[in-house]
């Protein structure tokens, strides 16, 4: 029983699913469009809630898939289904036959330019959470120059009907607090503010992180959205926000403003997704067949989904889904 299983996407979900499928005696094949495996998580420095190095997790995952057939810098350009299964054509013109397909295509980061009022791409010192994470990883960013005052804006591109995204992006709250602590570690004298709507501390240890952020790191959490950002003569950022707990508007000058960009559906897979007959849900992510019992299944037989391609998900969520998709595929092959 050496059936091929085509996994599109070599991030956390794709790698973990491949690991499990291989243990089950199937032949997973990973197609990854970038030059390395690991996806977004490989770009991350440390993970919430316990500041665990992301590299540890990624390295373990990479080690597990070292024997899995993997195509890097490759995309699926065409895919057909017949009675024998799926027939995919890759961008290197290779053809692959598979019994099942797992879409593990993950997410894209919301383009912060779309919220022009926050000034990303206009004012130098406005950056995204992804760029800040890169700073933690590399220690280099021209914008971060011994800042005295730093602000974080939550929900950029999430829970915002004006950018057509009404969903919660799930992980940005905890990430913001994690990053707020980390920047405080690097610049202990800096004042750090976060501007939130709600703080959704949904997982184990997350609420503890929230308390720690305030008690140990003296980060100030302000309930209220930032409405405008402008630049003063010295190139510092002037933000206007509302503190809804005090019921007062506030104005503040900052050295750096970090935008907590939401997850959006990865649209580069749209054409293949359409060929496979998988629809999108209201949030623009892929539609699975049932929220509870069919979270890895789609309306199409033999096409499975795992990870953040169906909704914003944390790393533990994604790994859980990757393991469950493997079971689903196994059952499908042996039905």
């Amino acid at each position: 029983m050496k059936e091929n299983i085509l996994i599109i996407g070599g991030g956390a979900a794709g790698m973990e699913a491949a690991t499990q499928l291989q243990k089950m005696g199937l032949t997973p094949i990973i197609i990854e469009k970038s030059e390395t495996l690991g996806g977004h998580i490989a770009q991350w420095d440390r993970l919430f809630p316990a500041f665990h190095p992301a590299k540890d997790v990624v390295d373990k995952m990479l080690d597990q898939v070292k024997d899995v057939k993997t195509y890097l810098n490759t995309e699926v350009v065409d895919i057909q289904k017949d009675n024998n299964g799926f027939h995919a054509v890759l961008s290197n013109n290779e053809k692959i036959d598979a019994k099942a397909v797992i879409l593990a295509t993950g997410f894209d980061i919301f383009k912060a330019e779309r919220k022009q009022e926050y000034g990303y791409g206009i004012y130098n010192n406005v950056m995204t959470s992804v760029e800040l994470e890169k700073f933690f990883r590399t220690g280099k960013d021209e914008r971060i120059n011994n800042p005295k005052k730093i602000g974080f804006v939550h929900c950029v591109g999430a829970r915002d009907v004006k950018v057509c995204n009404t969903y919660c992006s799930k992980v940005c709250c905890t990430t913001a607090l994690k990053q707020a602590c980390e920047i405080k570690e690097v610049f202990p004298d800096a004042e750090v503010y976060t501007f939130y709507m709600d703080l959704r501390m949904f997982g184990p240890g997350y609420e503890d992180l929230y308390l720690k952020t305030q008690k140990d790191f003296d980060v100030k959490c302000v309930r209220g959205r930032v409405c405008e950002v402008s630049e003063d003569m010295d190139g510092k950022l002037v933000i206007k926000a509302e503190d809804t707990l005090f019921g007062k508007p506030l104005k503040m000058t900052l050295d750096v403003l970090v935008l907590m960009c939401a997850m959006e559906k990865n649209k580069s897979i749209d054409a293949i997704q359409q060929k496979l007959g998988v629809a999108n849900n209201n949030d623009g992510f892929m539609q699975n067949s049932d929220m509870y019992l069919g979270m890895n299944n789609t309306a199409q037989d033999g096409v499975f989904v795992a990870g953040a391609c169906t909704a914003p998900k944390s790393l533990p969520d994604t790994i859980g889904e990757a393991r469950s998709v493997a079971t689903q595929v196994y059952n499908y092959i042996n039905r």
Partner: protein
Amino acid sequence: MNSQIFHPFVLPFVLGMAFVLTYCLVGLIRVISQLPKDDRKKFWRSLVTPKTAWANIRDLFGDCLFHVKIWKRNPVLGYMHTAIAFGWFMIIVIGHVMLFTLKPLQGVEVERLQGMFTNFYYPIFFKYFAEETPVFAFLMDFFLLMIISGILIAVVKKIHSKIVGVKRVMHFGFADSLIRFALWTIFPFRLIAEKTNIMAFWWLYSIDLLIFMCMLPFTRYMHIPTEALFILLRHAGIKVTEPRKGYVLAELYSCPSCGLCIDACPMSVNDKMSGNTSAYFMKKLRNKDTEESQRIAETCLMCGKCVKICPLSIESCDIKFSQRASIPYNINSDHSYLNVISTEAEKSSKVLYFAGCMTQLTPKIMRAMKQIMEKAGEDYQFMDENGVICCGRPMMLSGKTAEAKAMVEKNTELIKKSGATKLVLSCPICYKVFKEEYHLEGIEIQHHTQYIDELVKTGKLKVSKGDVNYVYHDPCELGRAFEIYDEPREVLENVGNLRKAKSEKEISICCGGSLGSFTLTQQERDEITANSVNDLMFNNPDEIVTACPLCLKTFARKSPVKVKDIAEVVSEKI
């Protein structure tokens, strides 16, 4: 031909005519008596002022009889209206003229025929009582056939409106359907009666007229007599003040429910929303359905397109504003901060730039304007760089005039003390308020499209021409409200290639983001935006350019290509 001067079949017509004339007279007195005193004076004066009197005559013929505006939009519909209105008018006129060309008939003296009472019905049933002279007979038949040809088009339009280029039509109740049926049959009955002289058709003809005239006041056909009054009142310069009173009453009854505004309305992207169009609003308000008319008044985007394309230029947006103002909204605003703001000018300069709150949310526009003004070497200052007082428009839109006034006064003080001779605005919403509600004597008010155009034309700003294909979207408050159509287009032609949108200038489609609407949901707005973007993408431009921060933000959500403000486009080319 019968040598008598009376037959009972004329009675239904006489009855109907007497009713409708009485009704119109009472209505006329009611409208005029409800006008505010000053407006009434204006009205009487306008009737004897040569300029307005000439405009009256021109429009009474042009609009009521020839329907020039409908011709411009849709020649088939234009012909339909002209055929019926002008044809009918000519039949009445020629009928009366014929009375004086009568040959004496057997046993009846001409004088008796031309008497007061007979005069009332005689021309209508002329052929029954007397013989026409050949020339008149031809003219009468000609105009009768003209009317019937118009009615034929009306029947086709009813069966399949798309043939005559109308997508959506009004849905009518029983009364409107019945009177329409009466109108359609009057003239065929007349033709048959005249040609066959069968008594039954003379009766049918007369009864049809009775039905038509008795139902006229209670249906959309009331627009026929009211239109004339409305034209006179409008030329007198009377403005909308209260909903459902005086002048507005004349407007309400002048709306013929033709439904041209339905296809034009940006909300008509689906069936449900097309019920929010002005034609329905006017109908509901006329029928005193306050709940529905209030609902529509609050939903409307106030883009003004229906007013521009209305064959009668009925000011439906103004009526909607007056309807809104009749309801006190619970807005508790605190404007005490106005007192703390210092009005002492830090420096004085010729040009004062006011970005406005919407532009504060699109900092790219502000940055582009700064670059442009600096490059052009302008002596300028930024009025609201560190905080902004609202221009007052949102409060006005919700009918809160006192609150709006407080802001207007503070801003006026700030502007006057700045010593500027020119005020430049980036937001068309502000522009409208500054133009209409502020008294800034000696200060030229410009939107940045005009300002940039002037800088380019006077040579102060040198721009280079690229090969990007732009399409320009006319913001409602800049285009339809002030007819600033050419300046932005000339600027764009200087920096790139201008492509045309499907609907441009006065018929451009609202972006869907308008502050005018209080109640449209985001999904409904998105549908409107998508439709408007499609219209702009008609000639596959590389970039959509607009001149309003709100349009910019709205389009950016849905556009397949880059959306930029005209200031941004120019700042890239200097």
